């Protein structure tokens, strides 16, 4: 199986891990493997998982490694074709029509539907041009079902049809990352087009490495304790589980406070950095037996 359809960024799984680490993204085996496969097989990568585990970061890191431009389509309820794909620049078209009052209708019509009046949106931008591209479709689950249909078309053939211009096919396939928080069930058809990666909170060993990478100067033992406490918090039934970003924030806070070990007082005073709801803080304090 050659990488004919692939995006050709990486040669081996190990290379994925090393090069991502160089730009500050520490990947687990599962992440490195699926990124490699997505690259090699040229398939979009659907990344699902709780908030704050680094789904968006992954796309950014791949873009940094590949020296590619990152094009981001942020989805929201009501995002539509003209926001995702392209639209016509009506104002400019009107100007063009007023400027050329003498022309026949046929001349004007063929003219105002040319490249010049096209406003490319993320999906079209990602397909056009031949520089390396990472396309990030962020929070796909927030978009309506109709947009999924659009994505299906774009992601299976990497081409877009503009009726007035014809079909535009990607000269160079973008590396596509779709993220989802699973607030809505994505359609079966879209899932089938993608490789699936469930990105969960990193295991303790990986999270320690991440924290120490992001917060240099943090004592090894303290990093270990921080990750242990966060791990215990994630095992509790809280409204919002602490994300990796919050672990890092907490480590930074502790460093700023000059704490060199965790004790009851420090944890109690800084719990608000990791937990965002009053009732979560109360429950955590109870379960950690903080007086």
């Amino acid at each position, binding site marked *: 199986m050659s990488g004919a359809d692939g995006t050709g960024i990486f040669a081996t799984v190990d290379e994925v891990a090393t090069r991502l680490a160089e730009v500050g993204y520490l990947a687990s085996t599962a992440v490195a493997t699926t990124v490699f496969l997505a690259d090699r097989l040229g398939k979009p990568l659907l990344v699902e998982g709780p908030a704050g585990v680094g789904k968006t970061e992954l796309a950014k890191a791949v873009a940094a490694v590949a020296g590619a431009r990152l094009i981001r389509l942020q989805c929201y309820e009501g995002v539509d074709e003209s926001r995702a794909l392209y639209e016509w620049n009506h104002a400019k078209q009107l100007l063009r029509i007023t400027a050329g009052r003498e022309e026949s209708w046929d001349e004007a019509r063929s003219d105002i539907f040319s490249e010049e009046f096209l406003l490319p949106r993320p999906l079209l931008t990602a397909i056009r041009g031949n520089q390396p591209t990472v396309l990030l479709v962020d929070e796909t689950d927030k978009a309506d079902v109709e947009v999924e249909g659009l994505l299906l078309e774009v992601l299976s053939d990497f081409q877009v049809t503009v009726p007035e211009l014809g079909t535009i096919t990607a000269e160079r396939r973008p590396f596509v990352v779709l993220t989802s928080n699973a607030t*809505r*069930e994505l359609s079966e058809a879209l899932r089938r087009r993608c490789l699936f990666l469930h990105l969960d909170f990193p295991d303790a060993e990986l999270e320690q490495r991440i924290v120490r990478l992001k917060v240099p100067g943090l004592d090894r033992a303290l990093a270990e304790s921080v990750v*242990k406490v966060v791990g215990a918090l994630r095992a509790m039934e809280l409204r919002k589980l602490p994300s990796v970003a919050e672990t890092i924030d907490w480590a930074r806070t502790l460093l700023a406070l000059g704490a060199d070990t965790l004790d009851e007082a420090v944890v109690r005073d800084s719990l608000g950095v990791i937990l965002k709801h009053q009732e979560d803080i109360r429950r955590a304090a109870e379960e*950690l037996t903080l007086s």
Partner: protein
Amino acid sequence: MTVTGGVPERLTSFVHALRGHGVRVGPGETLDAGAVVAVLGLEHRERLRAGLASALLRGEGQRAVFDATFDLYFPLRVGAPQGESSVAELRERLAEALAANDRAALAGLAAEAVQALGQFGNPPGSGGWSAAQTLDRLRPQTLLARVLAGQRQGRSVPEFTDRLEAEEIRRRIGAFRAQVGTEARRRAAELSGTDEIARRAVAPSVDRTDFLFANQAQLAELRRTVQPLARKLATRLAARRRRAARGQIDLRRTLRRSLSTGGVPLRPAYRRRRPQRPELVLLCDVSSSVAGFTDFTMLLVQALRDQFSKVRVFAFVNRTDEVTDGDLARATVTGHHPYSDYGTALGEFTERYLEAVTPRTAVLILGDARNNRRDPNLPALKLIADRARRVYWLNPEPPALWSTGDSAAAEYAGVVTMRPCRNARQLGQFIERLLPT
């Protein structure tokens, strides 16, 4: 890793086994999986696992099924492990591995333990390999105190994270127990064929777990699926509403809007329909035989509460009491005896709470209809059915058992619609249909 038979054959039987457990894998995905194997090779097992999961799975819900099946078709090792250790030695080494969280050592120990302690039949091993027997003899859970003491040794002051350690060690022991299960299945598969074991011994994914046979851990897992399931149902509902809201043009508002464009109706306005939110009454058998099912349904309905205009929940064993506030512990649900009595319970409901049922109400009755051979009190059920908009009876037993023994299911099914509802998936589908449009 040695793989008997060619890789394509192994891959297709793996895919078949997954399908047998309700993982929907199409031919396209099988091809993807083939490409994954071709690209990754068989050298790194965990990479292969991650790669195949990315090609074959479409959600995290079926991960446990996938992992267990993967371990069977792409086993960690083949045959019996080296070494013969006594129980004491094994426990000694297990304690060390647990303290160090040495995963490779733990996996090796699981294999050795099954080999040394898990065989049954005569001669040993001919009957198969039992995880339960292995764990009974090894008793890894009793190592907790010892591991903890070992970790604290040599430290002058206790540290804050010490209080988290017990939980952590317990998790490691739990993971080890699961590894022993995997290993016993692998050995059994070598004995009686992988396909056979994959079909029999891999636990179904949680949304297909039979309510009546779920154990404690599965029930806990089910409870954790309540929120995601409720969210899924609610978003599907929102999409349905959005679609239903479009379509009819509101002429008056369209004209009003057209004033700003010189009378040209550029932006048509649509008529929005008000969603009809039905009332819901749940009538639940909370006796121990169907407790898991009822408990899960109650949680799901509570989570969907804002989708209904009013939800009232009643629980019974042989007395009926309202538990809408969720406080089952304080409710009076049993009288003189602890057995289910649907007749008396329905009777009490019609006497005390019939006003909860109106022509807008959908009534859901949950239970196995096992009446312990008492009077089924059909008139009471008829009374409820006459007042309510719809009445559904959800029965966690398979229909084949409905009229056996002390079940009054057939009689009740003659009065109201009775449906089998055996797992979370079926319940989700049913509740979705019940939800307002």
